[in-house]
């Protein structure tokens, strides 16, 4: 075991490593994007006001129970097991599914289950006053959500979304159980063919860390950019002298 032997293994297998890292990242990004969309969908369904008792609200209630069931099941079982159940379940139903696609579906559903609660919390945490103000200028629930609430929720849950992306980069490794060619899977095969388990997995470790660290920094920058500058430009409007405040 030496630095040289680690380096040798990397140099000899760098293409396979990068391919694995690339797929780990792609699966994580796809999972986070679709998972966040699923999360928003569920969060929005759960916060539709139900004032009147009509057939519609009854259907909505049943639908929401189904969504809650999904959330509970996916939060309450390991992703590794979910991957096996989904993939081999589909196989046993004679449905042919690409392993990569199956991995993306499992990680998206898993992320969605976690994001749903973040989104619901984000919506609930927007102060009631802004909902009332939107109603008072004639917005219905849908417009209020689209123009006022969702933009704020999206910003507020960004740290949680970033966290989820980091988790997904790491957790994509468990998807190797359905033989998706991501970083853990490729590392395992390199280790198997070279009998250098420590070196092979040390390299994987470094690659995982580079990916998560970069993503974290990038997200922090993105957050700062979204918030805009702390100062703002005061427009000088001709013919409108800034009024003196107070009476």
């Amino acid at each position, binding site marked *: 075991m030496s630095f040289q032997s680690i380096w040798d293994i990397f140099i000899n297998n760098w293409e396979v490593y990068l391919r694995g890292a690339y797929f780990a990242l792609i699966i994580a990004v796809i999972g986070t994007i679709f998972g966040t969309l699923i999360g928003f969908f569920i969060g929005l369904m759960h916060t539709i006001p139900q004032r009147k008792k009509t057939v519609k609200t009854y259907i909505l209630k049943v639908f929401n129970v189904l969504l809650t069931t999904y959330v509970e099941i996916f939060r309450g079982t390991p992703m590794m097991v979910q991957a096996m159940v989904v993939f081999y379940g589909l196989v046993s139903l004679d449905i042919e599914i690409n392993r990569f696609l199956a991995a993306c579906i499992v990680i998206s559903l898993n992320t969605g289950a976690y994001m749903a609660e973040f989104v619901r919390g984000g919506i609930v945490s927007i102060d009631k006053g802004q909902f009332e*103000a939107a109603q008072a200028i*004639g917005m219905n629930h849908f417009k209020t959500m689209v*123009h006022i609430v969702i933009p704020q929720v999206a*910003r507020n849950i960004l740290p949680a979304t970033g966290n989820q992306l980091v988790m997904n980069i790491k957790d994509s490794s468990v998807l190797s159980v359905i033989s998706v060619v991501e970083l853990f899977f490729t590392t395992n095969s390199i280790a198997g063919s070279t009998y250098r388990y420590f070196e092979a997995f040390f390299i994987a470790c470094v690659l995982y860390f580079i990916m998560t660290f970069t993503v974290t920094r990038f997200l922090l920058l993105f957050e700062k950019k979204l918030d805009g500058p702390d100062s703002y430009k005061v*427009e000088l409007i001709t013919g409108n002298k800034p009024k003196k405040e*107070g009476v």
Partner: protein
Amino acid sequence: MSVVIDIKHLNKKFGDHEVLKDVNFQVNKGEVVTLIGSSGSGKSTLLRCINLLETPTAGEIIYNGENILDDKHDIEKYRTHLGMVFQQFNLFNNLNVLANCTVGQQKVLKRDKVAAEETAMKFLQLVGMAQYKNAKPRHLSGGQKQRVAIARALSMNPDVMLFDEPTSALDPEMVGEVLKVMRTLASEGNTMLIVTHEMEFAREVSDRIVFMDKGVIVEEGHPDVVLLNPQHERTKEFLKRTLK
């Protein structure tokens, strides 16, 4: 004078608690009406019932001859005719000052961007906030926020402006700037319904003052009559406590 809003036998219960008891009350076009009374008297609830932020338990609200409590009535459309100013300002935090004033015009009234911005700037100038059009709400002081909130409500060109204790959440030195804007609006002939604790201001701008206590209208009339020569014992007591 034509009646804009006519309230008949309005009742509002929160659970078993009856907040409004058989309230009958009218607002005429161009009139400035102020609701006064101690906290818990139901004046804010009455205001919130008028634009249906609270659903009345019973009664009628007639707007331009139509009962808006009918099931079929388009509540969203009705609300565009009422401008609401809240105690806590309630600006949209994700939008800058200008967008706060245009979002309703564009998304609800379907005005185009140019027209919406023109209208918004007109009212932002009126409230003295035009130069802050690019600022986000978090950059503004309470008084500035409230002035933007007033401009936002005016930008919808409402028939009636409703003010729910617009100065109660402000630091004392910022109360003046908001009252000044409201004085201007009153002098321009806007129909206004105001809930306030600013008695001096109420006396100055109101055409009519309504005193409420325990969910009923006890007394209403010209400011000088209600404030200087109240007829009812409860009004006298309230004024003794507030005007010192």
